[in-house]
């Protein structure tokens, strides 16, 4: 029984790390720019297919793709920002939201054209291997994905905390006018922030693809998960996002173990509703705080 519990908790923590990075980019873009990137999960899915293609065509290990995805998706993010987001920032919030949903559907369908709706998996050398610790079996692939997620989270945390540009990004989220006053080009930095958010989505997509099957038309469930992480963690900090991810991961592994499979989602949705009720006016205030 104790073994089983240890397994469940390890599994939950590893999943939680992955969920945390799924929400990290969303939280960053929302916290700093005030934009709900509805297309976030579409970029996660693109990250999964990025790893899929590199693996299929070049035999590239997803671990390498994980680090490759960051610069590639950063670039993609800045391009999308310049092409679309600069316009979205100028129209009303509801129009902007509709446009973002449009972007999500566009990416989903372009991906369906490219890859069909078939469910894919990436089978690397270590996909079915397990690490044995005494009587505890841990799937190696989850361990690797979890470790990568932790690395990414730490990178983000350190970047926002210790670099001048990271501090400028936080400053921009806390007081946009004051940031402009000291000479920060907020528009240019927004492109960087969005790029980082998408880079994070892409990398998260790679990590998710190592563990879960994926297809273009199931991406939207990751939006729900990422959003759950953001709601639970608030926009307070990278650390809170990590904790929120871990809580959700643990909840999932616990309820998977003790409840019929699909009820996992219900547990999480109820959690979502409870947080929303508890936070009351909450979120609008939370938005103003920064990462």
């Amino acid at each position: 029984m104790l073994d089983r519990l240890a397994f469940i908790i390890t599994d939950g923590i590893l999943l939680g790390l992955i969920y945390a990075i799924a929400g990290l980019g969303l939280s960053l873009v929302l916290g700093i720019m005030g934009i709900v990137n509805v297309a976030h999960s579409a970029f996660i899915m693109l990250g999964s297919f990025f790893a899929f293609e590199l693996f299929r065509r070049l035999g590239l290990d997803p671990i390498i793709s994980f680090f490759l995805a960051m610069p590639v998706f950063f670039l993609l993010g800045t391009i999308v920002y310049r092409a679309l987001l600069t316009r979205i920032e100028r129209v009303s919030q509801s129009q902007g939201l509709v446009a973002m949903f449009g972007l999500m559907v566009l990416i989903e369908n372009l991906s369906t054209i490219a890859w069909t709706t078939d469910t894919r998996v990436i089978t690397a050398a270590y996909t079915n291997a397990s690490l044995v610790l005494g009587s505890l079996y841990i799937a190696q692939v989850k361990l690797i994905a979890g470790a990568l997620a932790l690395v990414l989270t730490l990178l983000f945390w350190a970047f926002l905390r210790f670099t001048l540009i990271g501090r400028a990004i936080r400053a921009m989220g806390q007081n946009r006018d004051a940031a402009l006053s000291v000479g920060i080009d907020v528009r240019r930095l927004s492109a960087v922030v969005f790029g980082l958010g998408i880079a994070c989505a892409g990398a998260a997509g790679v990590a998710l693809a190592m563990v879960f099957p994926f297809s273009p038309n199931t991406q939207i469930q990751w939006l729900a998960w990422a959003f759950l992480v953001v709601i639970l963690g608030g926009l307070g900090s990278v650390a809170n996002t990590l904790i929120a991810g871990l809580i959700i991961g643990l909840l999932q592994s616990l309820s998977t173990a003790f409840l019929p499979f699909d009820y996992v989602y219900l547990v999480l949705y109820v959690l979502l509703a409870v947080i929303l009720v508890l936070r009351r006016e909450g979120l609008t205030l939370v938005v103003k705080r920064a990462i």
Partner: protein
Amino acid sequence: MLSLFFLPSSDNGSTRLRRLLVWLALSIALIVYGVVGRQLFLLSTLSTVFLYVVLTQAWNILGGYGGYLNFGMVTFFGVGAYTSAVLFQYFELSPFLTAPVAGLASAVLGVLIGIPTLRIRGAYFALVTMIITFAVQTLVLDMPVTQGALGVYLQPVRLSPLGVEQLFYFLFLGCAVAVTALVYAIEHSNFGWALIAIREDEDAAEIVGVRTVEVKWIANAVAAFIAGVVGGLYAQRIMYIEPSGTFAFDISLNVVLMAVVGGAGTWQGPLIGAPLVLLVADMLRVTVTSEVNRAIFSVIVILIALFIPGGVMGVWTRWRRRHKPKTVEAPS
């Protein structure tokens, strides 16, 4: 159809009456077609248009006037459909009788969902309503009473194929007219103004005494009721429902799209948006694959959202405003 909108106009009562008469004439024409029309395909397509008009109008109340974009309209629709279907399955009650019950079930759900979600604003509301769709869909898949992925079968209506099409044609047309009249009434009522005040500046609305939470709840519950009723009728129309199709996110997206294309926050918007979107969708469907079709569609959505604020109705009002001063303004 479009020529209807290019009437010379100003704001005086007689032209407004004239414009209303145009809509009335259109309704009469549709009624006449329902009686004399013999093409099953056209009747069926038109009743789908009416169905979407109803859903889009229902969405319009809170989404268009109130500015709360519900990206989970299909939740209410699906719950309505399942309520009627389950009532038929276990009690053999005809959905024609239970449609109001389906509406009530959806309205109750709307109120329950509203408690946590209507406190949050803007984009959060949109996302949460979308997530709730998945939650309800999962629930329907898991609950024994709904028979999970197997779905529920309903009994065919004992009428000729033409009779069936005509029946639903008139049912949905009637709903569309009734709901449009309701939205028209809301637009010209204090309730409508309260919603618009919430859209423009919720804090300010609250300060001047608008009971924002109640207004949003009512708007949401009414929308849920309407969607539930047509959901129940829809279940009878297609005679078989299952979770993935009945709760398809596409339906939610279509509703928002139609409102945005036609002009959210106007009673005419859904009347223009629903047929326009379905028409374009049908034209695309015969020329390209469904993925390409939807990709093109999403590009259209992005372009309209970014470049044509207010949709068709927005263009129309701007055009009118540009042409009005010549007749109204007296030379100084």
